[in-house]
């Protein structure tokens, strides 16, 4: 492999991983933008999305759908979109339910109380995933080892799109991430910029009290935010499972940490910031694995984060926030 090929390959991997991180990061940043809560449970909502996806895939387990010989025909794309939407709605609904049951009663409580509540919810969800992992299904290994990593079947053809002789590998998994993530991000941007509810979200983010006085139903806006954030997390969990072919009850921990880092890097509360931050973290990881050493990757990622925060305390695209404690 030539240097250019290696670089191209790492860019592909960096972008693919980064897009997934960006989708999860949007969930953190949107919720923070509206209610100023770091929703630590978001990563675990993402995990449950992965478990739901595997359950559906297992339940549909008819050979016709997962038969390797059939990989790549259009029914797979249909299945893929159905999974994205199914997991998205599930995670969005779960997120809204968590907000209704846990965060809403604490809305006026001190920020620290809300934060600890979020960590508590995170623990509950992790254990739920652990319990789910023991489901007596074939795709869950017969339910013998709940905590074990689960093999996620290959739903997309594993062929190299650049030709079998090419040193650079670009597979449908990588492409599908772009195909699904980019439209989602565009749709989200349009939604927030151009719709009535989106305008309500922006207003609530700027000043919830004023928004309420202007007649905006802030509770509905908040619920919509949790729904959209959760939906993106659910979509990301499908992409993640498809891309890594493994799910485990701990997958949300690392994904959540990366995404949270991305949100902070890009400026928490800023949606373009989360997208840029996610892609940037994906790229930094790939480049560090290649040009430094894997064992130093986490050091590099957080080193960059600290550097950026020193020079731009509110993140890359973050706006100067008014003090509000």
């Amino acid at each position: 492999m030539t240097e250019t090929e290696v670089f191209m390959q790492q860019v592909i991997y960096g972008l693919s991983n980064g897009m997934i991180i960006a989708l999860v990061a949007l969930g953190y940043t949107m919720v923070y933008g509206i209610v100023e809560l770091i929703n630590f449970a978001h990563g675990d909502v993402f995990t449950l999305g992965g478990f739901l996806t595997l359950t559906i895939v297992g339940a549909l387990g008819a050979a016709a759908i997962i038969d390797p010989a059939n990989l790549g025909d259009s029914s797979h794309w249909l299945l893929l979109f159905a999974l994205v939407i199914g997991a998205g709605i599930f995670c969005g609904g779960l997120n809204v339910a968590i907000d209704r049951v846990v965060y809403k009663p604490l809305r006026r409580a001190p920020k620290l109380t809300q934060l600890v509540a979020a960590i508590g919810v995170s623990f509950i969800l992790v254990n739920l995933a652990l319990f789910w992992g023991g489901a007596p299904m074939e795709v869950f290994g017969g339910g013998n080892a709940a905590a074990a990593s689960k093999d996620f079947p290959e739903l997309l053809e594993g062929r190299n799109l650049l030709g079998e002789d090419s040193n650079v590998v670009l597979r449908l998994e990588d492409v599908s991430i772009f195909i699904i993530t980019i439209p989602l991000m565009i749709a989200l941007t349009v939604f927030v910029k151009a719709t009535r509810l989106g305008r309500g979200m922006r207003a609530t983010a700027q000043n919830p009290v004023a928004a309420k006085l202007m007649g905006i139903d802030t509770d509905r806006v908040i619920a919509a935010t949790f729904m959209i954030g959760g939906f993106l997390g659910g979509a990301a969990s499908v992409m993640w499972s498809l891309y890594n072919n493994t799910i485990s009850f701990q997958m949300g921990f690392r994904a959540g940490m990366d995404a949270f880092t991305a949100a902070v890097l890009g400026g928490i509360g800023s949606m373009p910031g989360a997208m840029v931050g996610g892609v940037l973290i994906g790229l930094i990881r790939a480049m560090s694995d290649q040009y430094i050493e894997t064992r130093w990757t986490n050091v590099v990622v957080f080193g960059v984060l600290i550097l950026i925060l020193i020079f731009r305390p509110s993140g890359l695209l973050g706006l100067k926030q008014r003090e509000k404690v």
Partner: protein
Amino acid sequence: MKIKLIRSAFVFTALLAPLVGVGGALAESTIKIVSSLPRTGSANAQTTSMVNGIKMAIADVGGKIGDATIVYEDWDDASPQRGNWDPAVEAANADKAISDELVLAYIGTYNSGASKISMPKLNAAGLVMVSPANTAPSLTKQGFGEQNEPAVYRPSGKISYFRVVPTDDVQGAVAADYAKDIGSKKVFVLNDREVYGKGVAAVFEKRAKDIGLEVVGTDGIDTKASNYKSIVTKIKQSGADLVYFGGTTQTNAGQLAKDIVSGGLKAKFMVPDGCYEQAFIEAAGSRALEGRAFITFGGEDPKKLQGKGKEFYESYKKTYGGEPEGYAVYGYEAAKVVLSAMERLSKAGTPLTRESVRAEVAKTKDFVGALGTWSFDENGDTTNRTMSVNGVKDGEFEELKVVK
């Protein structure tokens, strides 16, 4: 100052009192044997198999030593947060065993890193510890780890830790030799940055260099990463035709195997005995392993054991109705060697205490067990050196070569 001294003397005596009671309690004819093995996480299937082995060994002696009844407790040293062994849990297990005066033997651990935590504690308490699965050489031998190893694990100066499985200085070398046998020329060595994985990878690397293989790169992976596609690209660039990973199923060997395939790397993949369990094949999916993965193991395929080992295999299948995992027989042997030491003491009329059991286990010589005839050497290691190299076929391990 003087008053303080006197007071601490009082406290000391008070603390000692329950210890003096140990002798009395033992007369109450109950002996406890505990095991500390990972029950939460993908190693659970392997652990179940080892625990079954331990239970079989206890059943062999009728659950009794002399008049004393054996009570066996199966403890978990993993936690759901880690999905793998947990230092805090292992430390708590060791403390619990030490404080329960009926406990005369501690069987564990599965992971060498976990033993690092419990070894010094148990050694100070004089409690014998027999591991069915630890292979890191630095636990018992000098020159493989830090300067103060293994002395730091033996605060009492006595040997109280024993293992029935050959160590990684043998395993890593066998792996490197086999890599050469199958025609590899350039190897890339990865490890999981744990005691066991790092140790065995270092031995592999050294041996590989000694026998003329080119080591084109080394690195320690992040065991919680979502995928290893980037590092696979780096390996591809290095031109390696074999990737060695010192690690376990629990430290993401399965994901690495998958990413080698999806990254289009046509190299072979070699892993040590921490992956010699069905869970590894399940995690990686056999499509990523067949024909390209090689797993070394300090022993033989249970199906191929001879003599007492064959009896064990057949009786295991009859009792539990399934194939034993690779380490089942080591669980059996670990318990067996402790029990036979206890039986010898009981026959000689020596009271069973932690010290007498420890000393008797250390004397084990020419023990005829399921793994053949072997002894404990002066470090507490087995003299058994049997190793095998396995491949994967039709979703199961297949023995390719045995080295004795």
